């Protein structure tokens, strides 16, 4: 391990330097979602017996912010480096593909978790959130942020232009997160859409994360975590394979 600590540090420093854009802005967005959806829906929708809609909404918003920001961090960092050419600075040193992967993905997960913590913090005055099983909160947040960080890395490696990364984000990541039960329980969906939701890995991340707070969820968190862990394995393996072969990075 030679370059890993510095590469991780550099990736974290990078988003810290533009914290208003990378941390404060997504926290504000989540807060706006909470204020608007919470205000409009609170009296109309009740997902679980003991939980008000606004309270129900918070863990979903937190997890959505974690996932989207983890993806945004690794994808935009590597893509910008590829576009400007400064990616050579990390290709010339003796950094192994495993170190490269770990640094980019952990930095992405860090940004996701920092934003998630920020969302949790600013929504605290509005809701009283119980924590029934802290371990599920931590496990799902970490696994989810790592998966999306690795996906961001894959998107940036494969893409030749910035619009392609944006397309990946807009046409894959956004629908997957919005259709995962952030704003509703999939139980309230018609049967077909309910079935379809079970093929969305993000659904399990949100559902399991929420279970950690309320102790209730659509599926058993152990099953959910098995799905998420499998996902983590597949996505990481794909990213590592691309990096090992030097796909589009070393020609």
């Amino acid at each position: 391990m030679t370059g890993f600590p510095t590469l991780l540090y550099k990736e974290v420093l990078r988003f810290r330097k533009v914290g208003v854009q990378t941390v404060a802005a997504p926290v504000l967005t989540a807060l706006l979602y909470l204020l608007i959806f919470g205000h409009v829906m609170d009296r109309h929708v009740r997902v679980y017996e003991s939980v008000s809609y606004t309270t129900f909404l918070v863990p979903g918003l937190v997890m959505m912010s974690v996932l989207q920001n983890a993806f945004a961090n690794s994808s935009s960092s590597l893509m910008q480096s590829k576009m400007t050419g400064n990616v050579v600075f990390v290709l010339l040193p003796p950094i192994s593909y495993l170190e490269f992967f770990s640094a980019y993905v952990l930095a992405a997960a860090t940004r996701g978790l920092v934003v998630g913590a920020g969302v949790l913090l600013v929504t605290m005055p509005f809701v009283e959130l119980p924590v029934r099983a802290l371990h599920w909160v931590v496990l799902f947040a970490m696994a989810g942020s790592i998966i999306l960080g690795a996906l961001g890395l894959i998107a940036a490696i494969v893409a030749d232009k910035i619009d392609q990364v944006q397309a990946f984000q807009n046409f894959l990541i956004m629908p997957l997160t919005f259709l995962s039960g952030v704003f509703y329980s999939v139980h309230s969906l018609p049967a077909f859409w309910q079935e379809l939701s079970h093929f969305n890995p993000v659904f399990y991340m949100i559902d399991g994360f929420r279970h950690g707070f309320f102790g209730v969820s659509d599926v058993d968190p152990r099953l959910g975590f098995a799905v998420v862990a499998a996902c983590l394995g597949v996505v990481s393996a794909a990213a590592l394979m691309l990096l090992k072969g030097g796909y589009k990075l070393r020609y």
Partner: protein
Amino acid sequence: MAAIEVRQVSKRFGALQALADIDLEVREGEFFGLLGPNGAGKTTLISILAGLARADTGSARIMGHDVALDYRGARRALGVVPQELVFDPFFTVRETLRNQSGYFGLRANDRWIDEVMASLDLTAKADVNMRALSGGMKRRVLVAQALVHKPPVIVLDEPTAGVDVELRQGLWQFVQRLNRDGHTIVLTTHYLEEAETMCARIAMLKQGRLVALDSTANLLRQLHSLHLRVRLRSGEWPANLEAVDSGGARVVRLREYGEVESVLAALRAAGCSIEEMELQQPDLEDVFLEIMRRK
């Protein structure tokens, strides 16, 4: 041990044969020039040495470390100044150099960073963001980045392209000092007079092939084109002395300096007196053009 050893390296991009069977050795401590027109394969060869590209066939070693099998050893021994003026706009000069040190596992490198910055006149800019630097300053930072890990072998890919005269001279003095301190230097450049004054040995590439590899002196000699330009004050040019007219003077082609003597003897024997005489040496540009034309 050779500083750089390239064996039978070929590289193809689709239909383009970027490099074909390159064999090359650069000795430790040498100042070596890699010349060739655009698209000759210079940057591809450097990329293979640096691990940025992979050879289709053949192998390359830096200070004995295979660039593929022992990439960590090879990359530690090599500092590369890339051709493109690239930088990371998020960081200051010092942060850039600290990060680069860290990538090589050097986490307490400030003393050397300060020394490199001082040598490259970057000290005053240490805490300035990379974005705010002029092109010349960015180029210096690129050189500094290549040196953070004190590599024994330094490759500069057209480091003076688009750089003003003052910086170019400062840069060359610095690179020559590194060479005197024992670093092996490999240089690609379009400025042939730079290669001529600094490189002891030169390789020339053309369309991915090595078309010349010799000492700079031998390459210059190879052209057989010492020109002796003579203007007579009086007397008739001897018929047996082959020469061409050139603006009222005569130019004799010589193979070596010693032939000057026989020309003078022939002129003396013919009773000529000389008003003006000049020995014109070939420069690398002549050699380069000649070799590119021939092969």
